[in-house]
């Protein structure tokens, strides 16, 4: 009985440690960053569609998140992280790292420009989101493989 409990506890500890360890893996980190990006886009879209009232703080926070993510996102693609953890990263990223980084930089620049000249109403948020959405799609078009 004691041995069984010990064995189960050990197994759970290993699994737990695995989960915690995985949390630092670049594939997992970058997936989390993309989720953050989606959350920010969602907040802006709510305002753009008129589902949520215009709120300058939310617009600022969302655009800031996007600028932050765009800055450090390309760092999450070191050699050796091409596969694993169900990554949807295309091998093209490592074949054309400069272009990949340029896409991230463009997103950061567009979000930064909107942040500097904060969209002041529903229509302006919609326009900013359109530009940013095109950046999202432009990178995904080449560098993400749907699994």
């Amino acid at each position, binding site marked *: 009985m004691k041995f069984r409990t010990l064995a189960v506890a050990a197994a759970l500890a290993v699994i737990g440690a695995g989960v915690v360890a995985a949390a630092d893996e670049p594939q997992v980190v970058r997936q989390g960053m993309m989720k953050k990006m989606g959350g920010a886009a969602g907040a802006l879209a709510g305002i753009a569609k008129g589902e949520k009232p215009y709120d300058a703080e939310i617009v600022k926070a969302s655009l800031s998140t996007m600028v932050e993510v765009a800055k450090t996102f390309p760092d999450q693609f070191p050699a050796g992280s091409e596969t694993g953890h169900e990554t949807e990263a295309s091998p093209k990223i490592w074949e054309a790292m400069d272009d990949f980084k340029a896409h991230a930089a463009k997103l950061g620049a567009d979000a930064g420009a909107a942040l500097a000249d904060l969209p002041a109403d529903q229509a302006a948020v919609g326009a900013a989101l359109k530009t940013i959405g095109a950046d999202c799609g432009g990178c*995904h078009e080449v560098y993400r493989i749907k699994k």
Partner: protein
Amino acid sequence: MALRKFLGGIVLLAAAGAGAFYFITAPQRLPAETWASAGEPDLANGERIFNAGGCASCHAAPGAGEAERLVLAGGLALKSPFGTFHAPNISPDETAGIGGWTLAEFGDAMKRGTGRRGEHLYPAFPYASYARMTVKDIGDLYGYLKTLPKSASVPPGHDLPFPFNMRLLLGGWKFLYLNEAPRVTLADADETVKHGQYLVEGPGHCGECHTPRDVLGGLKTVEWLAGGPNPEGEGRIPDITPVEGKFGDWSAGDIAGYLETGFTPDFDSVGGAMVAVQKNMARLPKEDREAIAAYLKAVPAR
């Protein structure tokens, strides 16, 4: 002596069979009167069909940006299990493009996969979907294409290994897979769903990517829109039938919104080959996106 007669009989049968195959699968042309009803081209509708049909996505020059999207110079390589196809020049240039084609010749290519010289065209050009288009839409599209810029570009021909380089065999492919039948039967389809069915099964040719193919490259229509391996190589094409817990959880509004903005309900963004499609969908009138969404909510879940 009997053996010689027997063998002679076999040879005769084989010849008769080959002759029958050749006759049955010869490239078809629609009757000339078909195109009489097209009337004066409605260029606005032609532009709409151009976007729904995604012509620029294959026929614009490789790497063409937004500005050169309307110069249909051809040249884009389409890799497939049968070899690599190169999209032809369909600009209105009289020599390098289709400027010299009549409406009937254009229509025969779109609806029957028959080229100007009476040759079979490869179904990488999705005439197996375009076959469902109306005469009017094809006439309007033809009129619109004539207004686009000319290009003198001569792209490379297809790069296909034997036996796929034999156009004759396409007659057999068409016998099996080319028809105008609806892909799915929808009971109680209202006008919006029917309109969506036309757009998706016809000019939209969505099934050409979103439906898995068999070993001969024909669509497995029992799995209509159920997704499958990417025919161009990497990754998977999603199932867009209303499977509960998956695409079925998207509302019609979500689908129409995605086609307009490229954002999924949880704000992931469109990617891969769908980016060009979504950009075209965004150019359509709202009612068209809504009709497509209504149809996708109505098809059988696979």
